[in-house]
């Protein structure tokens, strides 16, 4: 057992005045390690006569946990202070400290807790109790009364994001029948959800439930509204936070809310749960998880606007030896953290990739081109032990590095004339700024500051075309969080984000940072001048009033502050206070090297989208920040890791792993890279209208360039900032196009192409075969491939007599062989 329960171990019975958790370890010999019982959560405080707390009895042995809550014997040492029932639920009796003990499997554990306010007068609060009941029961969901137009006359705010409005709707609007203080039991608020009278939404609440008790007692006690000093939720704790479980076992989750007044409450009953991988774990409405498969699942817990998750694991059944794990050479922290995860899940890494696999992969991932035949032969022949490291260094210095990564960042920044906002001049200014930054390895924070911390002419600073592209304030705000923070705020434009912690208020505080960016036409076509306006606000749509401009988790500016809002944003955006900034770009860079991102999709950093290896993600982000936001540094780190250098060939114990980096997962090459590789191997360039001869597809500054091939193979339109705008899905028209279309066929049959040169030079079949394999696959043919294909080539010439027809037959055969190579998965995929 790890994580939050660590503090529960040890003996400190009654010694501390703080409520302390205690665990009595009973060292039995069970397999390799001792079994241990602990009580969760480790901190329990009961603040009112109505407080309840579910406790968990967790037994850990052999690295596996079992939830023994239901079978444990529960005893209160101080029944005059707190009672505990057979299910582990504690209730207050009088103020003081109490020790609760659990006994299970011959083990024993104790937990000290405090009781205060047990004699206070208690009443249910609207914000703290009523709204959560309505949310849990779905009353204020989008399908019911939370819909924008409400339902059957009752309109609530979605998931209770505006309690004041909800209070009005329930108590003041239309008739007094919804909530009747005079005759509480006749309130529609109680009659409807219990189906005592017809209710379109069916029966949501049982009359004998705690939920009914909350609603009815709230009305009976006067249906009090919101109070200024209502405590608000400041955080959640879930127990267990992390656990390795047995297949088929169940685990109850306990969720505590921490309030602004320092109080703590068990809200497990009213939290909402979901599993990120239903093939591994299922979770009930009550927060009981059942492990239905093997692997790791995150259980998302949401309450009001807070979210967090518990990570539950059932290792695979594989028998893996230390030797198996040692196949992954530990070269840096990436490998250590990947191995930690693989050990935990019992997944064996693949063998290291051979030189030609590594070479091809490194070229494609770092610079988007294939090594030529000579480069392959040189590398394979090189005996230096550092040749892989040296290769990485040399690749990062090549001009193709700048072309390739400038293209990627142009995808990110939507550099394109596609949207009509940029003309050719502006497009080139924008693109040249991107490429120059990449070529000089400008640190990522400087790169982004070029956009946000400057103003003036877009001809002088091409980065400013960002504002020409996104003129609308709302679009600008949303695109900025997506591109530079990996967050989609759009939902919060109209209501609190349903999957996230962002509120509508935060949204409009954030949007107001962009309200004073002015733009005017410059001196020449393609020139725009970006300046700071003295006035202008984005009002909150409900109140019509603007809110103080505030970065999402940063310091607010007063509405009347004279500070430049854009500069304020720029400082926060690129600072270490903004954790999303580094994580966003780290995630995008990582996704350029592995088929699967640390999170999926790689531009979705919301808290409810956990990373497949959170520790690895954290470490990479820290490394990146420590390096001064140095992109090449991070790329070096990744490419030099043992993890990146694993083979893509799976073994029996990692075949199904697609997210823990136990192997290099194959991925289709980007459209532009395929086209350029076809050009370089055939020696026939593509040619793009309006661009100089010889320009490669990956060097194009724009996506508004006619190309059936690129279109068909998934070039992104660069219209919205979305990682998945680029598609690598295969399609029938792609296949038809390479089989019958002009792009590849034209290159193959062109006069004076590489095929013609090889034949003219009088190369033997064998040399031609070697050359083509080296160029397309970065390897020599295997013996059997050689034998088969040489036989085929011979046969293709057979019976052709001599002279011209024989020559023609040979040329056609080489064309066909090249075609076959350039349409295989081995060519079209990086592996």
């Amino acid at each position, binding site marked *: 057992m790890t994580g939050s329960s660590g503090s529960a171990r040890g003996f400190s019975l009654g010694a501390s005045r703080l409520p302390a958790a205690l665990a009595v370890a009973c060292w039995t010999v069970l397999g390799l390690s001792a079994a241990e019982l602990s009580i969760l959560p480790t901190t329990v405080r009961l603040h009112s006569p109505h407080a309840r707390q579910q406790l968990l009895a967790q037994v850990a042995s052999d690295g596996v946990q079992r939830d023994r809550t239901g079978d444990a014997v529960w005893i209160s040492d101080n029944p005059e202070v707190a009672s505990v029932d057979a299910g582990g639920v504690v209730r207050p009796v009088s103020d003081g400290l109490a020790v609760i003990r659990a006994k299970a499997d011959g083990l024993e554990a104790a937990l000290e807790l405090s009781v205060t306010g047990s004699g206070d007068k208690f009443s249910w609060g609207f914000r703290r109790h009523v709204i959560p009941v309505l949310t849990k029961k779905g009353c204020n969901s989008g399908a019911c009364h939370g819909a924008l137009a409400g339902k059957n006359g009752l309109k609530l705010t979605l998931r209770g994001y505006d309690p004041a409005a909800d209070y009005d709707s329930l108590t003041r609007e239309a008739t007094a029948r919804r909530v009747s203080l005079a005759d509480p039991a006749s309130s529609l608020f109680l009659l409807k959800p219990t189906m005592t009278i017809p209710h379109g939404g069916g029966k949501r609440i049982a009359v004998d439930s705690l939920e009914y008790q909350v609603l009815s007692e709230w009305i009976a006690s006067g249906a009090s509204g919101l109070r200024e000093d209502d405590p608000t939720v400041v955080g959640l704790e879930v127990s267990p936070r992390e656990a390795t479980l047995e297949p088929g076992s169940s685990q109850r989750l306990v969720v505590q809310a921490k309030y602004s007044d320092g109080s703590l409450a068990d809200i497990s009953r009213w939290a909402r749960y979901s599993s990120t*991988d239903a093939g591994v774990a299922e979770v009930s409405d009550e927060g009981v998880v059942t492990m239905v498969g093997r692997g790791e699942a995150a259980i998302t817990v949401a309450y009001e606007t807070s979210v967090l998750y518990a990570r539950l694991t059932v290792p695979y059944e594989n028998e893996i030896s230390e030797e198996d794990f040692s196949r992954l050479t530990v070269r840096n922290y990436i490998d250590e953290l990947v191995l930690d995860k693989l050990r935990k899940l019992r997944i064996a890494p693949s063998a290291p990739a051979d030189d030609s696999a590594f070479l091809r992969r490194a070229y494609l991932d770092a610079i988007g081109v294939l090594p030529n035949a000579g480069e392959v032969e040189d590398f394979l022949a090189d005996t230096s032990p550092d040749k892989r490291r040296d290769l990485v260094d040399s690749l990062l210095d090549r001009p193709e590095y700048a072309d390739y990564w400038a293209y990627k960042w142009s995808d990110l920044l939507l550099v394109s004339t596609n949207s009509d906002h940029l003309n050719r001049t502006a497009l080139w200014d924008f693109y040249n700024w991107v490429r120059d930054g990449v070529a000089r390895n400008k640190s990522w924070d400087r790169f982004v500051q070029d956009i946000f911390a400057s103003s003036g002419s877009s001809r002088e600073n091409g980065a400013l075309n960002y504002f020409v592209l996104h003129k609308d304030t709302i679009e600008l705000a949303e695109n900025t969080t997506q591109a530079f923070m990996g967050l989609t705020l759009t939902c919060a434009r109209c209501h609190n984000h349903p999957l996230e912690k962002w509120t509508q208020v935060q949204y409009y505080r954030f949007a107001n940072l962009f309200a004073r960016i002015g733009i005017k036409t410059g001196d020449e076509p393609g020139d725009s001048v970006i300046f700071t306006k003295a006035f202008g606000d984005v009002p909150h749509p409900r109140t019509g009033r603007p809110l103080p401009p505030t970065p999402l988790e940063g310091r607010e500016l007063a509405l009347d502050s004279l500070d430049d809002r854009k500069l304020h944003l720029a400082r926060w955006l690129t600072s270490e206070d903004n954790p999303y900034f580094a994580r966003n770009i780290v995630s995008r860079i990582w996704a350029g090297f592995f088929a699967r991102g640390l999170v999926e999709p790689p531009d979705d950093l919301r808290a409810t989208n956990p990373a497949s290896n959170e520790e690895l993600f954290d470490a990479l982000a820290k490394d990146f920040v420590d390096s001064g936001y140095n992109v090449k540094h991070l790329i070096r780190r990744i490419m030099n890791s043992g993890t990146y250098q694993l083979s893509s060939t799976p073994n029996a114990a990692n075949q199904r792993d697609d997210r823990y980096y136990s192997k290099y997962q194959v991925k289709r090459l980007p459209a532009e890279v395929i086209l350029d590789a076809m050009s370089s191997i055939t020696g026939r360039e593509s040619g793009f209208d309006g661009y100089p001869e010889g320009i490669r597809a990956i060097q194009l500054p724009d996506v508004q360039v006619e190309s059936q091939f690129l279109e068909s193979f998934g070039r992104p339109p660069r219209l919205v900032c979305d990682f998945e705008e680029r598609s690598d899905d295969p399609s029938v028209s792609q296949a038809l196009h390479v089989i019958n279309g002009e792009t590849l066929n034209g290159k193959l049959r062109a006069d004076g192409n590489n095929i013609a040169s090889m034949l003219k030079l009088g190369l033997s079949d064998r040399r031609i075969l070697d050359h083509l394999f080296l160029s397309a696959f970065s390897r020599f043919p295997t013996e059997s491939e050689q034998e088969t294909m040489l036989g085929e080539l011979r046969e293709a010439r057979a019976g052709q007599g001599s002279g011209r027809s024989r020559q023609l037959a040979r040329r056609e055969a080489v064309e066909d062989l090249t075609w076959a190579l350039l349409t295989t998965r081995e060519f079209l995929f990086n592996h």
Partner: protein
Amino acid sequence: MFRLDADKTVEFCDGLRRRDFLHAGSLSLLGLGMPEFLQMRAEGAVRDTGKDINVIMLMLVGGPSHLDTFDMKPEAPIEIRGPHSPIKTNVPGIEISEIFPRMARHADKYALLRGCYHNAAAVHAMGHQLFQTGRLSLGGMEHPHIGSVLGYLKGANGDLPSHVLLPKIIGPTGGNFKPGQGAGYLGKRHDPFVLNADPSVADFEVPDMLPPDYLPALRVDRRRDWRAMLDRTVSKFETSQDARLLDSTFHQAYTLMTSETAREAFDLQGESEETRDRYGRNRFGQSCLLARRLVEAGVRFVTVNMFETVFDEITWDIHGSPPFSPISGYRDLVGPMFDNAFTSLIEDLTDRRMLDSTMIFALGEFGRTPVINPAGGRDHWPQAWSIVGAGGGIQGGQVIGSTDKIGGAPKDRPVHPSEIVATIYHQLGIGLETELPAANGRPLPIVDRGVEPVHELFA
């Protein structure tokens, strides 16, 4: 990336407990293969109606004026009723424009919906998106075309793709909005098979469907064999979903190339000169004829775009001044073009007893302003317009909905485009609660909750 759904309950802002979506890759952890999973899901989502209904959707790009086509206002002043007169049809009480004399003889076979409206911006793409996807593609969320959804849920029926689009995707029509003709978040592999050619030209053939002249069949076969030989030697791709998919697209491409059915379906030479004339020797007419052939060969959904854009060509977009069309274009060109193609389609499907199993909708993206503008044309009017539906169980000879005296607004039974989409899904046996994996794995029902089919069509 492609995703499939699985049981994972999560709450979303427009639903209660709902299914969430996983990446297909994780499904393999369940030991569940793709086809089985697709089948399982399809079994749950697709109701067995006893017969397969296919759909032909004719997109009348530009936006026909309802006042000059299917919702005439002869009593209105001249600046409203315009230059065209109504004529009687073979159904007493139903009149349509004189520009459709052939259609008038078949009014018993189609229904008119005169109360169409939408509330979105009066730009072409809004109506295109609404009619083909049921929604507006906003906020980076690109909704899939009905035909792509069909392919996603039901797969192909034989050698031919499930969704074919003729002749080309709608191009720019002003504003930067997609025309709603792709698979959107279902992924490119569910995009329609787009013809990208003009079937009315003399040497028409499907681009890239057949090898170029310089590539004899022997070499195509040799390439195919060699590719297979080289591909076999590397086993590491077998565990990759994407790599397997690539292989299957090559397989489908070769199927299409070698399928007698496919080749025949796309070959208009198989039709008599008389038939080809009857449909009209133009891009739209021959596309409609091709649509009929494709449906006969097993294609589930055919979309026909009557025009590719609204600029520099006579279309339904009669603003009255260049680069748009004059109102006279209806009588001279566009009216006859539609009349011939639509009527021939109805006639042929009736003759072949296929009308019951083929649903046709002919629709434009909005209506036109009731009052004729100073240029003598009419501008965009999404407040009210008319569309035509036939076949697939639709009761012909009826008019559903009406507009006020000047055709300015629906008077009764307004119909939103999303209701047409719901109608199609419903009649094809697809539950409206069926969910699709949208952006960020957010599950979305195929139409917005609460949107109902136009049941009157089948009364």
